[in-house]
């Protein structure tokens, strides 16, 4: 294959790797509670800012910041569920839109007040160091981002597959009443799932920070990308989220290379609308 096309392909995969954590996080929450966390991208933004602070104040590189950020955002998600999401869980989805749009405005404007609207980035020169494979060129930062997001996604997968608590979560989502009867505290399970989903957004923020910049509205577009990916793959489908991420990454990479980088996201949006109209339940959606 032409090495140029290979390069574009690899760029697409690297891009998709960034989206995976956002999409998987959204799907964890949707899978358990059948609600969409519209504020997922904004939690990613908060994660980015925390990682940024850790870098500026303590010199901690963002990849190491994953652990404190994940713990902080897990706590945020846990409390968010107990005090804000739980009361609206049974309500029609319009009321949930009110809650989550409220959260979006709170997070964005909180960030605007605390960190101002400036674009901030951490400067780690090593992250731009290229790894050359034949004719291919891969920046170190992007490669690390991809590797970490794959590791984290696998961890989440095996957590659900093997860990006892993961099975609790699945049980609570498949049959809440049955789960209650055999002694699972479904409310706690949902709180943990929310925490996990939001922690994943935070982790996405940490691995994105070294190769991107952060500002209060950075989450808007990434959040929309997350919605697109999970509906494309099928809501609640784990495999769908991964496949969807790489499809969107590849589209953006190809359109960005051959047409204009500005229209890359627009092309992904257009294709998404078309796919939705042809296959409304997504590629791996529930029947």
């Amino acid at each position, binding site marked *: 294959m032409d090495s140029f096309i290979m390069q574009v392909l690899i760029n697409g995969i690297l891009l998709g790797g960034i989206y995976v954590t956002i999409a998987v996080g959204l799907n964890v929450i949707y899978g358990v509670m059948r609600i969409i966390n519209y504020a997922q991208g904004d939690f990613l933004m908060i994660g980015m800012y925390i990682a940024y602070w850790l870098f500026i104040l303590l010199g901690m590189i963002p990849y190491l910041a994953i652990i404190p950020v994940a713990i902080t955002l897990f706590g945020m998600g846990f409390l968010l569920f107990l005090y804000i999401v739980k009361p*609206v869980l049974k309500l029609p989805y319009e009321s949930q*839109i009110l809650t989550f749009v409220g*959260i979006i405005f709170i997070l964005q*404007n909180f960030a605007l007040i605390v960190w101002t609207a400036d674009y901030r980035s951490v400067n780690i020169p090593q992250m731009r160091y290229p790894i050359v494979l034949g004719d291919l060129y891969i920046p170190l930062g992007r490669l690390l981002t991809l590797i970490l997001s794959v590791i984290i996604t696998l961890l989440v997968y095996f957590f659900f597959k093997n860990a006892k608590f993961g099975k609790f979560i699945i049980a609570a989502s498949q049959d809440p009443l049955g789960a209650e009867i055999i002694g699972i505290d479904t409310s706690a399970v949902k709180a943990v799932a929310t925490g996990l989903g939001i922690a994943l957004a935070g982790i996405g923020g940490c691995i994105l920070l070294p190769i991107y910049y952060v500002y209060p509205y950075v989450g808007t577009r990434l959040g929309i990308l997350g919605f697109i990916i999970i509906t494309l793959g099928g809501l609640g489908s784990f495999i769908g989220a991964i496949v969807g991420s790489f499809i969107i990454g590849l589209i953006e990479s190809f359109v960005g290379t051959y047409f204009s980088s500005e*229209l890359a996201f627009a092309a992904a949006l257009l294709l998404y*609308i078309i796919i939705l109209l042809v296959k*409304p339940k997504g590629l791996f959606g529930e029947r």
Partner: protein
Amino acid sequence: MFKISKYAIGELSVFLKRRLYQALFIAIIMLAILPILGLPPYILHVLITSFLFAYVCTAWSYISGYARQVSLGHSAFFGLGAYSVALLLYHFNISPLIGLLVGVFASMLLALAIGIPSFKIGLKGIYYIFSTIALAELLTLIFISLRTYTGGALGLALPIRRNPLYLQFESKIPYYYITLGLWLFSLVLAKKIQSSRFGYYLFAIREDEEAALACGINVFKVKLKAHILSAILTSIGGSIYAVYYLYVSPESVFGVTLSFRIATTSLFGGATSWIGPTIGAFVLTPVLEYVRITLGGKIVGVPLLIYGLLLVLIARFAPGGISEKLFKGREKVV
């Protein structure tokens, strides 16, 4: 404190249940004569934005509230209306009156283009919400990328004409009456729809689409009609916004924030009630403007932060919106 507020809400509710039309009538008469008595420009501005928001949010509720086809991308139509006016005036010196009609036409086409396929396959709930978000975001990006014509992300400042034929006036008062008129029109239309066969169809679709279909309602056609009506009215709102502010930018007229604000303002007031979106707009817009003025430019994010808090609180304590809380047990009339 809690007891007192509960008591006050109860009293207000009783009063409104009995005297809603009288109270509304008096309020409208007062609003109509207020500017003649002389109001400071700032109050006028707050009222104008409230009217405009009440109008757009009421239009949003025709499809998203009554038929529960929730759209989080209504800024697509708002933006088309605003940009039609802005582009025609800026490049060809064509009056906003014509720009407004072009915007209406463009919005109608867009509403058809998105409405026909999505209603045909019955796109609903989250899937429909995401498709509308994607559509509005797509238009934002397109208008940013066409920067030779649209000025890109910075937007366009409209040339000043000071000519009523160009819908530009020396004072704010004509805008006041235009937006007041639009708002009243949408309100009367909402009331008319709700007491018409068309409205009952919409509410039937809201409750159970398949049952509505089984009853012989042409669900597709009814939804499309409401969707187009809503899109056209929203587009007119966008056109008026453009001539009033004399400035448009993709983020301000197409952006997600505007879509979110239109949807949440309606839901805040109660999207199934004919007066709900109005209540939402008249509570939230003045709150935003008041906080903005009292805090000045010192702390930028505070107004929307408070807005967000109000949304979270309303979803927690009155998930159906204010109007549902106020008019409980009177669904037939309100």
